[in-house]
């Protein structure tokens, strides 16, 4: 059985031709290394004094330009698209202006067992002698921690939340039409036009002028980068012996002379154009979720159709170009994260998400030939990056959904499926126009956003079970004994479930308030100290408003808090309600004793009873599901009750996603009343607690869909299926119907791990034989054997549905 499963997985990887096979192999095999070039150049630039005294946006733009003038210009052998962050595939630059890695950080990155970033001696020396001495105390990270109040730091250290922007810049956005339709010369004209129209009577006149100047410099910077590549390719062509490759290199040089200066004219140019922008955005800062071409099948389709009609392109050639493009993403792993950030997002994946399907701006079905072709590329490439999203609306034909499930079947976790009608509702609720809602999509893992027009910044994960733990200890974190919450009463005095629930809500409100204050401080720091003139060129309406992306330039501004542990919290509250307040199986005192003993010794019986004999979320029983629904409602209500942020005027929203933080949050949270032992992972996304959803997938879908996800920015659901469940057309068709129903009921997202627990156990035993085993983690896939043990165990513990 195992052999069949492994064979089935390996068989699907089949790049279009030998060139792609070689490129893919080179990309997959490349070791991830820290690349010091960017840090070295940046430091040199700032040390030179060229920027001193200038306004910050100009300084940043000039620094970016300096980078684009001097960074290496790697070309992967046989590639068709050029531009790469770092000195070669998987050479990952660092961003000392945002986070300075200490020598110890570098040591850990270099030597840690899972997901290392190799650091050579020269880099360590450079860091010791130049980078650290220059940047220490000046980085965004230093700035942020020096500004946050003590109560914020206490909660952060206790693991009540994480902070997304302590090591990585905001960003979190995807490209829209502008990215595929505008050349930089036109954008430079637009900048000039806006500059001319500035009114000196405007109190913001000077700020705007400075920002526009910075944008103009940033535009020049990427033009220089492209020009350098054109020259490099011409030189390479001179040396090239192979006549066909020589012609290709010259054609690539011509493309680089045209884009990104002008709008792309062909399919190939469109891919190259986008990629230059992607490299620019990811060189400028280390934004979360890198950057993304968004609704790529929509954007590329006009080029594809025209090229095909005019005989410039064949389907096969388009596929080859797309596969080459695919590998560009895989060659840019996430930046090296350390500390809590590494815990919350422990992966090389940088979450660039290609959206397929959905609707067009006019409300008609968006599925086209390219949607299918890109699924085919995904099916044959199976690399860690990029990620995809299949957007299903009521207008999407079944054949597209079933095709997507066919790609899911061999078990790599991709693509995840999204309810696009739900995405539109979410966007409309947030005040987007109908057209902007229909051209929206999902980025990162499951986050909805108005692509190309919205700055929706993620601010950190919130640990719900930890807040319950603090409530049960009347403001004290039992792990440290520190008083970090507010006093909501001794739980032993609670007479009713409502007493407990209200105490929890007060505690929640307290923490959310502290977190929001922190968010405001961090927003101000980024707006002032880290403008991003290059990214601002591409997101509407930054140029028009002469305002930076990080300072509210985007058409829509949103701020997200990511909620974690819904399943664990629901089951814990349900168990307390049922056993303490209704059945009176236990007193609160007894529960607290059992928790502090971590259910050891005789308390194992208590634990089993709480675990097995309490109503649980995920089994389509209203008792627990209504608690989940209420939690979602309350969390949304609290978060949204805050006024818009001070600088970006961003509305406050929540969504439900863990990445890998549920493992970290589990580590810092003691035993919980649902029978969860201390230190073990909390539940992920909006999935039921690992291993407890025993009533089948239909019941899970019903339970999940009872919560009102339209009020959130998204909700991640993982389901694990036994491989033989997706083995024939009939099963795929029925699963497709089930997914339709889930979406009709209001579900936002579902993704499937099609893998047997047996295979995962075997991979743990013989990791060397399973290097290529990819599984679904949260909103992304990863290599199983690279995952830390805790996460491996968590994935194995998820319920595997073996029967329909």
């Amino acid at each position: 059985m195992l052999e069949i499963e492994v064979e089935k997985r390996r068989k699907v990887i089949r790049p279009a031709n030998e060139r792609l096979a070689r490129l893919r192999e080179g990309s997959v095999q490349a070791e991830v290394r820290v690349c010091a070039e960017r840090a070295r150049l940046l430091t040199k630039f700032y040390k030179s004094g060229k920027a001193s005294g200038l306004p910050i946006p100009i300084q940043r733009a000039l620094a970016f330009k300096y980078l684009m003038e001097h960074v290496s210009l790697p070309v992967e052998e046989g590639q068709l698209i050029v531009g790469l962050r770092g000195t070669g595939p998987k050479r990952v630059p660092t961003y000392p202006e945002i986070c300075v890695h200490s020598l110890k950080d570098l040591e850990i990155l270099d030597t840690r067992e899972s997901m290392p970033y190799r650091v050579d001696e020269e880099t360590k020396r450079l860091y010791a002698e130049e980078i650290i001495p220059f940047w220490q105390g000046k980085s965004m990270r230093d700035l942020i921690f020096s500004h946050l109040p003590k109560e914020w730091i206490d909660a952060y250290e206790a693991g009540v939340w994480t902070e997304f922007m302590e090591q990585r810049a905001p960003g979190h956005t995807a490209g829209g039409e502008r990215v595929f339709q505008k050349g930089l010369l036109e954008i430079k004209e637009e900048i000039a036009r806006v500059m001319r129209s500035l009114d000196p009577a405007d109190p913001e006149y000077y700020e705007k002028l400075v920002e526009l100047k910075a944008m103009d410099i940033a535009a020049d910077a990427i033009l220089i980068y492209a020009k350098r590549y054109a020259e490099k390719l011409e030189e390479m062509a001179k040396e090239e012996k192979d006549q066909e490759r020589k012609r290709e290199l010259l054609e690539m040089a011509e493309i680089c002379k045209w884009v990104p200066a002008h709008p792309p004219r062909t399919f190939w140019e469109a891919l190259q154009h986008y990629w230059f922008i992607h490299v620019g955005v990811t060189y400028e800062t280390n934004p979360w979720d890198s950057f993304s071409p968004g609704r790529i099948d929509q954007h590329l389709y006009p080029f594809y159709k025209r090229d095909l009609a005019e005989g410039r392109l064949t389907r096969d050639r388009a596929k080859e170009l797309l596969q080459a493009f695919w590998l560009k993403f895989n060659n840019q792993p996430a930046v090296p994260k350390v500390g809590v950030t590494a815990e919350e997002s422990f992966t090389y994946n940088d979450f660039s998400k290609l959206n397929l399907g959905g609707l067009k701006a006019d409300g008609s079905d968006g599925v086209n030939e390219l949607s299918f072709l890109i699924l085919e590329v995904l099916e044959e490439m199976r690399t860690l990056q990029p990620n995809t999203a299949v957007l299903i609306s009521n207008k999407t034909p079944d054949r597209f959904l079933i095709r997507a499930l066919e790609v899911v079947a061999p078990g790599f976790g991709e693509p995840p499926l999204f309810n696009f009608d739900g995405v539109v509702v979410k966007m409309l609720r947030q005040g987007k126009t109908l057209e902007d809602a229909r051209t929206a999509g999902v980025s990162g893992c499951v986050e909805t956003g108005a692509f190309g027009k919205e700055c929706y910044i993620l601010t950190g994960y919130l640990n719900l079970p930890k807040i319950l733990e603090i409530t049960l200890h009347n403001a004290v974190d039992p792990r440290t004994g520190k008083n970090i919450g507010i006093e909501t009463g001794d739980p032993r005095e609670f007479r009713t479930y409502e007493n407990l629930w209200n105490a929890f809500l007060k505690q929640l409100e307290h923490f959310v308030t502290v977190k929001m204050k922190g968010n405001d401080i961090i927003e101000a720091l980024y707006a002032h100290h880290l403008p991003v003139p290059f990214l601002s060129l591409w997101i509407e309406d930054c140029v028009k408003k002469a305002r930076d992306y990080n300072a509210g330039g985007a058409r829509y501004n949103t701020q997200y808090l990511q909620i974690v542990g819904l399943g664990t919290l629901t089951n814990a509250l349900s168990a307390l309600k049922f056993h303490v307040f209704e059945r009176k199986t236990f007193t609160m005192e007894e529960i607290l004793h059992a928790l502090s003993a971590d259910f050891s010794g005789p308390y194992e019986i208590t634990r089993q009873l709480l675990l097995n004999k309490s109503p649980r979320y995920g089994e389509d029983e209203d008792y627990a599901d209504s608690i989940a629904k209420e939690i979602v409602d309350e969390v949304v209500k609290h978060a949204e009750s805050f006024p818009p942020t001070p600088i970006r005027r961003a509305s406050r929203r929540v969504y439900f996603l863990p990445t890998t933080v549920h493992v970290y949050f589990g580590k810092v949270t003691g035993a919980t009343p649902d029978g969860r032992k201390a230190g073990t992972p909390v539940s992920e996304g909006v999935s039921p607690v690992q291993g407890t959803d025993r009533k089948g997938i239909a019941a899970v879908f019903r339970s999940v869909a009872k919560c009102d996800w339209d009020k959130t920015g998204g909700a991640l659901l993982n389901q694990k299926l036994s491989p033989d469940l997706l083995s024939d057309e009939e099963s795929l068709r029925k699963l497709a119907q089930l997914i339709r129903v889930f979406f009709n009921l209001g579900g936002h997202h579902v993704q499937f791990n099609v893998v047997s627990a047996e295979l995962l156990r075997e991979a743990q035993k013989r990791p060397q034989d399973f290097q290529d085993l990819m599984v679904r983690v949260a909103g992304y896939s990863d290599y199983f054997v690279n995952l830390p043990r805790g996460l491996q165990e968590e994935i194995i513990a998820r319920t595997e549905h073996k029967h329909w």
Partner: protein
Amino acid sequence: MDATGVIFDIQRFSVHDGPGIRTTVFLKGCPLRCRWCHNPEGISPAPELMFFEYKCLFCGTCARVCPKKAISFSPNGEGEKVFPKLEREKCTGCGVCAEACPSGAWHLVGKRITVGELMSVLERDEVLYDRSQGGVTFSGGEPLFQPDFLFFALQACKERRIHTAVDTSGYASPAVLTKIAPLVDLFLFDLKPMDEEEHRRYTGVSNRLIHENLRELVRLGRPVRVRVPLIPGITDTEGNIAALMAFLGEIRQGIQGVELLPYHDVAEKYQRLGKVYGMPLLSRPSQESLAQLRARIAQVVPCA
């Protein structure tokens, strides 16, 4: 009055018991004693206990709470793990032990439910039936063994325009069968050994009534799909297949097709019920022989 019945499971998102996506309701109690029965917990009409050894914590809670003292638990001094002992003749199926058991090692199969309660569960998946053109399947046990409950449940489904299927051994009074027939959109009708003596030997009852009932359904023009459990050496023999094909040939105008259900081993279930599995351990029929057989039967009627 709301009719009540005893069921032992409700399986949602079932895709093997009729068209589309279905919810299958398992009614408890069966007049047959098929030796290969793969739902032994459906045979007795009364609620009964199943014991999952791997879940047992050896805490003795069950023995303490049993009102009939039907469970004894006496760990020996050497710390050796000894499972609790159940005297099934004393057990009334009250379920107190199952409810108290912290780990769920004791599981009570069979609960009394009203048609109204059942419908509130079935209604949850209405959208799913609509979308997939599925519905509800009544299985067992033998669903016709609880004729009133089945009748009212079917009627309630029809009132809600839900597609209904009944998975039956066909061993029931013709009056019961004709009464429910108009409410059933699809019969899944089992045929076991064709030879009457063989049938009696392996199932405990004659097949004469079963065959008559099948002919009657065909006469009434009700949609029927025949299902044949393929038991090595018993129903897959040359003699039985020939007889089956002859019979199918006679009624082929009136049936939608035949499904072959390959045998699988369920010895563990019997052990959990404190029962003895009456079948020697047989291997599953191979995919090739199954395909051959399907092709052969398909000469007479469509076969899956």
